[in-house]
């Protein structure tokens, strides 16, 4: 039931783009994205709801394919501050099942 994220890890140079994928085997109502830096709490990035509504930061974009139960997070023109571990979180319609993905470690180098 835990969503699978890919890739597991990625290294980018500043300015490069990256895509992080999240795939679930269950029907989804919403997908949440978080970034966590080492030793810190997760920070909310975006939430995507079934039906197309999105809430999040302007500089982050993501997609949610409800039929495929997949979501992708798009990081463009990466900055050093983007480094961290990215987690997706998936939720069912009733809200009684929420699972975090396996995590993607992203490192941006100068």
């Amino acid at each position, binding site marked *: 039931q835990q969503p699978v994220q890919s890739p597991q890890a990625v290294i980018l140079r500043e300015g490069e783009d990256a895509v992080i994928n999240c795939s679930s085997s269950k029907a989804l109502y*919403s997908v949440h994205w978080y970034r966590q830096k080492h030793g810190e709490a997760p920070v909310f990035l975006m939430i995507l709801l079934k039906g197309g509504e999105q*809430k*999040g930061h302007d500089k982050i974009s993501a997609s949610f394919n409800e039929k495929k139960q997949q979501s992708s997070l798009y990081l463009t023109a990466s900055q050093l501050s983007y480094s961290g571990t990215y987690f997706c979180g998936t939720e069912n319609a009733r809200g*009684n099942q929420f699972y975090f993905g*396996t*995590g993607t470690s992203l490192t941006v180098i100068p």
Partner: protein
Amino acid sequence: DTAVSQTPKYLVTQMGNDKSIKCEQNLGHDTMYWYKQDSKKFLKIMFSYNNKELIINETVPNRFSPKSPDKAHLNLHINSLELGDSAVYFCASSPLRTDEAFFGQGTRLTVV
């Protein structure tokens, strides 16, 4: 002002003990959560709670229980602590279940 605060930040205790972690939010949010992050960095939601409903992750042992004296607080009580309970526990809050969640700084629990 800290939006979501947890105490203590670190907690070391012996197996079998009972302990509590406190969480307070001053954001006026209706929903609060407890999460567990293990040594492999896997995150798991344990509970979500608003003033109407408690949703429990079915995999959470009943030794763990959330207590909410009021809307701004959601404390986590753990009975008969086990070695496997060692982890970082995060509290969070959000206006609604489908809104941005704000996290506390975490409590590192070590059971020896």
